[in-house]
């Protein structure tokens, strides 16, 4: 901040800590977000509640790098060779006794962005049709939310009547799916959101394995949701709530009825906020500092108390938070529209984040002591397994009347998921859940995990998370007697089952037995109830944005600027003296050439003796006007 204010800084290069000269030089704490994350979209209106407390805010290490206007480029360079060269050039040319008075070793950083002013302006400009080549300046942030229903919701009951979900009959488990920091494609967060995603999927799998045969009278289903874009004022949850209120969740039934049943093979009943019994939200769950877990309860009622009691009775070390306000969480969005929903927020912090690298490039596996090769018995895997087991058990205890077994989470899948999300995309689980004609069987598989930033289009992170979710909660479709043929035709037949219905999502994935060193040679058809839904702010809906008041704070309005390729180069600069000399010579030459040309033309008849006669009388200089 102080450096920026001097006005002398033209650009910043941050050397990466993965290799090279600065390897493992991680700061004690660093967070790119503000001390009170998402404070403008908080349920509360006073700053004190938004922050937990202004003296001790949720995210004390927040330096607010994300939401400030930086008018110079900030580059992160991970490659060890490049950072070494940069440092050597500086050491050799810019410091020492022979140093020059000008920066001999210089760097040029290019980071051109097209958008200007704010989202409203650049989005409006992108939509003005002025020429046949429209220019886009920015795009709204957008990806997909994922949701999973424990029990399939066929819109038509066996006796032919249409199914209507009862009020307050579905328990909801929620976690955010995205990470954020200031460096593009480096947004991988271990504590937030990976631990939440992994635990949620493990809980869903545990409940699925326990096989609920019937529910208690006031429960009809359990829903799991992974919402995207929550780091940016709750984009995903705002969209889900909006869709629910527009009767568009899980799909627009009214539109379907009008067009005479596009989904004639099966629809799902509508679901909206009134069907939610309570929300259990999973926040940051890593046990890097300590294994103590906390719950923050809001609108506590007997259902919540029941869950709390059951969780407390489990081996999990969970305590009530000493705060009276709800930490920044997706539940805020639901509460704003329906203030009486009971919320249970589970996290690894009481008053302030225990994750000192929240929304930072340093929130990685290394810092949280995770390594896939350390196996299932490492601290973090066991800890998350414990949480998932306890939560699955509590939910089943509350909701189910009859199950086949008690739910237990599987540490093996937790370890596999952590490997893929936090360590490398070249992991065995991605090979199991990949589709045969897609990643990882097509394209380059590098060693970095996928970025978890919402971005402006669907991402690999979302797609692979969906497939992982489907893989762990789906039933395998048994093949009929005749084989389906080769991989492509098997895939086609499997995906055909998705036609005209919205009750199940059939996905064709390679599976654990269908691949080897060379690639995938077969695949399996999975029948799941995991769906995706567009996660883009309602403010950018075609019928909303023209009249939407962008200053109203009702919906998030984050957009990303269009940009050309980002590059940088290092070079040795010539001295100012040389530059001035070059300029002077150039100017002199120009000034000399003007009278020289004039004289040459005037005396041209003397200089050029033969032939060439100038139009008009000798010596005449008037330029001839254009003949009409």
């Amino acid at each position, binding site marked *: 901040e102080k450096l920026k204010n001097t006005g002398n800084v033209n650009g910043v290069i941050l050397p990466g800590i993965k290799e090279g000269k600065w390897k493992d030089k991680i700061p004690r704490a660093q967070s790119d977000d503000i001390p009170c994350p998402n404070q403008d979209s908080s349920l509360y209106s006073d700053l004190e509640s938004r922050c937990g407390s202004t003296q001790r805010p949720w995210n004390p290490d927040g330096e607010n790098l994300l939401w400030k206007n930086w008018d110079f480029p900030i580059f992160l360079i991970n490659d060890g060779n490049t950072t070494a060269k940069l440092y050597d050039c500086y050491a050799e040319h810019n410091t020492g006794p022979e140093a020059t008075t000008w920066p001999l070793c210089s760097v040029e950083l290019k980071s051109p962005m*097209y958008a*200007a*002013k704010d989202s409203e*302006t650049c989005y*409006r*400009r992108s939509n*003005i049709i*002025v*020429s046949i080549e429209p*220019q886009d*300046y920015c795009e709204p942030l957008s990806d997909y939310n994922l949701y999973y229903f424990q029990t399939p919701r066929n819109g038509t009951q066996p006796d032919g009547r249409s199914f209507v979900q009862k009020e307050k009959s579905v328990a909801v488990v929620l976690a955010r799916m995205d990470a954020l920091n200031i460096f593009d494609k480096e947004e991988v967060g271990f504590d937030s959101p990976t631990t939440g995603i992994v635990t949620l999927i493990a809980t869903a799998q545990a409940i699925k394995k326990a096989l609920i045969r019937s529910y208690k009278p006031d429960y009809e289903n359990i829903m799991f949701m992974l919402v995207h874009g929550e780091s940016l004022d709750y984009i995903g949850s705002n969209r889900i709530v909006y869709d629910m209120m527009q009767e568009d969740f899980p799909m627009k039934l009214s539109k379907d009825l009008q067009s005479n049943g596009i989904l004639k093979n099966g629809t799902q009943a509508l679901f909206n906020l009134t069907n939610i019994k309570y929300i259990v939200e999973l926040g940051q769950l890593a046990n890097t500092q300590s294994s103590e877990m906390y719950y923050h309860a809001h609108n506590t009622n007997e259902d919540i108390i029941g869950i709390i009691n059951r969780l407390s009775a489990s081996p999990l070390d969970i305590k009530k938070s000493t705060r009276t306000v709800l930490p920044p969480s997706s539940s805020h969005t639901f509460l704003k529209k329906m203030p009486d929903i009971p919320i249970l927020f589970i996290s690894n912090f009481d008053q302030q984040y225990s994750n000192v690298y929240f929304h930072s490039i340093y929130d990685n596996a290394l810092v949280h002591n995770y390594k896939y090769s350390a196996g299932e018995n490492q601290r973090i895997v066991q800890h998350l397994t414990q949480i998932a087991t306890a939560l699955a058990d509590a939910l089943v205890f509350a909701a189910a009347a009859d199950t086949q077994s008690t739910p237990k989470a599987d540490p093996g899948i937790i370890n596999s998921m952590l490997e893929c999300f936090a360590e490398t995309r070249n992991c065995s689980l991605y090979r199991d859940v990949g589709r045969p004609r897609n990643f990882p069987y097509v394209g380059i598989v590098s060693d970095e995990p996928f970025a978890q930033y919402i971005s402006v289009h669907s991402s690999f992170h979302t797609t692979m998370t969906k497939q992982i979710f489907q893989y762990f909660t789906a039933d395998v479709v048994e093949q009929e007697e005749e084989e389906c043929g080769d991989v492509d035709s098997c895939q086609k037949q499997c995906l055909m089952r998705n036609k005209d219905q919205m009750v199940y999502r059939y996905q064709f994935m390679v599976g654990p037995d269908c691949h080897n060193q060379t690639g995938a040679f077969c695949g399996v058809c999975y029948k799941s109830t995991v769906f995706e839904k567009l996660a883009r702010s309602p403010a950018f809906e075609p019928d909303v944005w023209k009249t939407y008041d962008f200053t109203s704070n009702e919906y998030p309005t984050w957009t990303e600027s269009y940009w050309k390729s980002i590059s940088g180069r290092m070079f040795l600069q010539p001295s100012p003296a040389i530059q001035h000399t070059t300029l002077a010579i150039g100017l002199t030459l120009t000034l000399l050439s003007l009278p020289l040309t004039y004289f040459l033309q005037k005396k041209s008849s003397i200089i050029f003796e033969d032939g060439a006669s100038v139009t*008009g009388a000798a010596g005449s200089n*008037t330029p*001839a*006007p*254009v*003949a*009409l």
Partner: protein
Amino acid sequence: MDLQSRKVTNEMKVDLCSKYFMIGFAFLPFVWLVNAVWFFKEGFVKEEFEGQQKIKKYVILSGIGSLIWTIGFISWIVIFDQNRVAWGATADYMSFNIA
């Protein structure tokens, strides 16, 4: 056309000057400017000849006309440049090529 050539009669010159003057009314201030500059020598420097008064008149009027246009353009450019950002949406709808 070379106005110095003997083939161009004075009547043709007057005719040309008046034609240019008329054309300039079709929102073509540059035509007026060209008219004024081109016929200036004819109208004010050369000796008296038949029809020179007319040329003088047209040159002066063309000059004034292009001057008014120039002042108008400069004023609008300055105003728009100063206020484009403040005008927000209206300015964007007026612009053909933003950025």
